[in-house]
């Protein structure tokens, strides 16, 4: 029972982070047809912001509060300076974001001397959930993500600007054709996606220590999530990232649960568990190329 609760809790925690990372990526991908290979570095920037705040002697939570806004600004600048010119040719845009990601990654590598930094969470220690000790901070992440998703959903379904976004999301061609000012829409969406990634980075950095390569792993997992969920919808990517988020800790846990009387753990080494995530995801994508919920595909 305890194990079950811990499992569900971990899965929720990791899924929440993945959702935050993936949502922006997926929205950009489906709306503008650009897959942002620099998205992982937005996550990194968010994490780095918290680190900087700590270095400046400010509290971590302040950094986490600031991260989404700072990263959003960074995203906006990048959109205006580079991406905007490249909507015409998505492939070149993709390569450009790849380069931008590389620049950010290496810059931060220099700034933190290629090292790994542990960062304390604002709320340390553990809380008791149904009699099981779980990390307080993970609980907060789950809560915040839930709130954010609800907020996003309301924004997308109730406000006029939100509806425009949704329109452009589900039918990009139409949006471009109709009078909607895509320039403004795209810029906002790009910044918004960056903000979410930044927030994800800021919230997760206490769990995983800060390092320059933080982003790459999340880019790969985010890509798989988008592939799983399919693009063109709001729900698809969320579902996809939830699945990936479930697999990452899930496979580790799988090793603790006896199946058919044998301990799977003896068969699956931790490393196998990790690589299994990619293999399983890719296989699903291979045989379900449109994702779970489909309006289109990237």
């Amino acid at each position, binding site marked *: 029972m305890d194990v079950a609760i811990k499992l569900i809790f971990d899965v929720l925690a990791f899924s929440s982070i993945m959702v935050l990372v993936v949502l922006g990526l997926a929205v950009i991908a489906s709306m503008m047809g650009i897959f942002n290979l620099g998205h992982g570095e937005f996550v990194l920037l968010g994490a780095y912001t918290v680190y900087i705040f700590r270095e400046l002697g400010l509290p971590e939570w302040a950094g986490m509060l600031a991260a989404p806004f700072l990263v959003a600004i960074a995203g906006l600048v990048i959109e205006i300076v580079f991406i905007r010119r490249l909507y015409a040719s998505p492939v070149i845009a993709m390569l450009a974001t790849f380069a931008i990601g590389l620049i950010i990654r290496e810059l931060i590598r220099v700034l933190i*001397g290629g090292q790994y930094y542990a960062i304390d969470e604002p709320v340390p220690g553990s809380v008791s959930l149904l009699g099981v000790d779980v*990390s307080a901070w993970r609980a907060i992440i789950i809560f915040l993500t839930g709130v954010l998703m609800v907020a996003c959903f309301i924004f997308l379904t109730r406000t006029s600007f939100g509806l425009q976004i949704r329109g452009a999301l589900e039918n990009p061609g139409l949006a471009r054709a109709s009078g909607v000012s895509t320039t403004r829409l795209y810029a906002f969406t790009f910044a918004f996606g960056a903000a979410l990634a930044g927030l994800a980075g800021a919230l997760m950095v206490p769990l*995983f220590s800060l390092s320059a390569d933080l982003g790459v792993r999340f880019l790969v997992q985010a890509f798989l999530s988008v592939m799983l969920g399919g693009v063109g919808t709001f729900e698809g990517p969320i579902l996809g990232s939830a699945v990936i988020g479930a697999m990452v800790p899930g496979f580790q846990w799988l090793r603790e649960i006896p199946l058919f009387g044998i301990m799977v753990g003896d068969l699956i080494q931790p490393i196998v568990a990790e690589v299994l995530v990619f293999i399983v995801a890719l296989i699903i994508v291979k045989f379900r190329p449109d994702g779970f919920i489909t309006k289109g595909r990237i």
Partner: protein
Amino acid sequence: MANKHANGGGGITRRSLLRGAGALTAAGWVAGFSGGWILRPRGAFAAAPIKFGVATDITGAIAPSGNSNWQVIQLAVKKINDAGGIGGRPIELYLEDTASDPKVAVGNVLKLIQQHKVDVVVGGITSAMREAIKNPIVRRGKTLYLYPQLYEGQECTEHLYCTGPTPAQQCDELIPYLMNTHGKKRFAMPSANYRWPQLLNKYARALIEKNGGEVVFEEYYPLDQLEYSATVAKIKSEGVDCVFNTIIPPGLQAFTKQLYESGFQKDGGAHTCVYFDENSVNYVPERELEGVYTCLDYFHTVDDPVGAQLQKEYAEMFPGTKYLFTAGSAATGAYRAVKFYEAAVKKTGGDLSREAVSAAIDDVAITDVPGGDSRMVPGTGHCALNMYVAQAKGGSYEILSSANMVPPQECG
């Protein structure tokens, strides 16, 4: 010598600008002194200098250890040169950054050997790094290699000498102490997935089982795995009372945090990590460090006048440095390496050929090293050391027990 002006101050000449890196350091960032350094001896020497190569992790994941090694070696060499060098010949230091990245390291080590043509190389911290660079140094480079870090043992390559503690030296004291003094019986071995943990665990497990204990699980994780909740949960649920931790950074931070959060220590569990030392606060917060058991060849708290004196000089040479002169970071091993080499060259009467020095170093003893005297055990390439079992208390370590001249039990 070419650079009198440099000889005047500090004695350090950089072959390149430092402004950028300097600015970063000023801003509180660890930019690291990557790339080639030459540290030339002060004053004028009659004889040509001995070229002493250092290849260590100045940047990257384990830079804190690498930098302390580099600084300690500077101290050791400075002392030798101030005392007139080795048989009148000064030591000239050459540094290449191995950047915690074997791929980079192989190339940079090549530079030490083929470009600077050094007479000996000291360096490498993780056994991954040793594995990567011993080939370019010993085989391809035909150069003497001194490896300073505590490690997994079974490194019996010719012309490769280990000046750090072996599993036997670390475990023979620690494990019985934990089991007999603290009654720990159920061990867990969460480990980083490379050679050091594997072989160390092998030795420790044998010892544990010999003493009637049990290893509940022994698992190997990717070096940068960040998700340990399943492992920690198992530690709790299986009633483990001693975690024999061989996870290294970057995974270390996540693991210690998650272990701490689970309240393992709080509930009286023993957390041991045999490379933890005074430098470890650079990796993990103090509260998570508190109470950790470790066993090394030196601690600041060891009652040892030589060590105390060296610490004093180190502090004077590098005021306010965050890279401490400690054992777990291989710094004491590095210091011993320099002294062993000095002793060997004295013995050969200045002959620097690898074979001669190698033959000499195989059987020398050294004094004036932190933690007490040490001597090479002939034919093994390892040295006997004094070992100390200690526990972290508020950032420093309390010595719990000690043993003198513990044999390495390798390659014998």
